[in-house]
């Protein structure tokens, strides 16, 4: 296994759509980050997050078995920031104010908005660790 640079941000992707996972991975890697793992549903995301710590999780809202909100709830308890991504424009009103979501993106996700969301998640996470 190739060792990743310790300076790279470790990002996880959870989405039930394989094409979305491929595209998000491409975007994340082009931003200079490392994709640590990918999950096809919320249950798998919780399991993988418990096994391998990441810096931020990109989580699709609408997934089978365990949905994105439920998985985010569990994962954020471990101190991992979650960026929720949804394909339904109206869903932002449902989740915008809910903890533990750090930020919410609506598909189609651009490189620029993804970068901003990841950086925001990292800053928010650091603030929480420092108790600010």
């Amino acid at each position: 296994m190739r060792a990743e640079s310790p300076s790279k941000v470790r990002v996880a992707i959870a989405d039930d759509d394989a094409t979305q996972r491929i595209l998000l991975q491409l975007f994340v890697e082009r931003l200079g980050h490392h994709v640590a793992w990918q999950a096809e549903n919320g249950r798998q995301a919780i399991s993988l997050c418990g096994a391998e710590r990441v810096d931020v999780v990109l989580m699709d809202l609408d997934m089978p078995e365990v949905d994105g909100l439920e998985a985010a709830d569990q994962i954020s308890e471990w101190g991992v920031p979650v960026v929720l991504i949804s394909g339904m424009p109206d869903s932002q009103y449902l989740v915008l104010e809910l903890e533990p979501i750090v930020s919410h993106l609506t598909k189609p996700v651009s490189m620029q908005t993804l970068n901003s969301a990841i950086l925001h998640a990292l800053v928010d996470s650091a603030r929480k660790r420092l108790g600010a």
Partner: protein
Amino acid sequence: MSTDARSAIVDRRKIKHDFMNDLNSLLMTLEALQMVREEPDEFAELVALMQSTINSFVARIDAVLKLIPDSADPS
């Protein structure tokens, strides 16, 4: 609510979810194609991905169209 009505709502939601996923994938692939336009291998992979998404999208449209009757009965 009847089981049929509940199933219809779930099906509509799933159809909408799948349609939106395909559309969003196409839009994101367009951005990705611009990003890798100088890299032939990556470009070819993304074009294949886009073709696959378009095929999936067409199949979904076809499946929905099959649910619509050929013609309305005027009587």
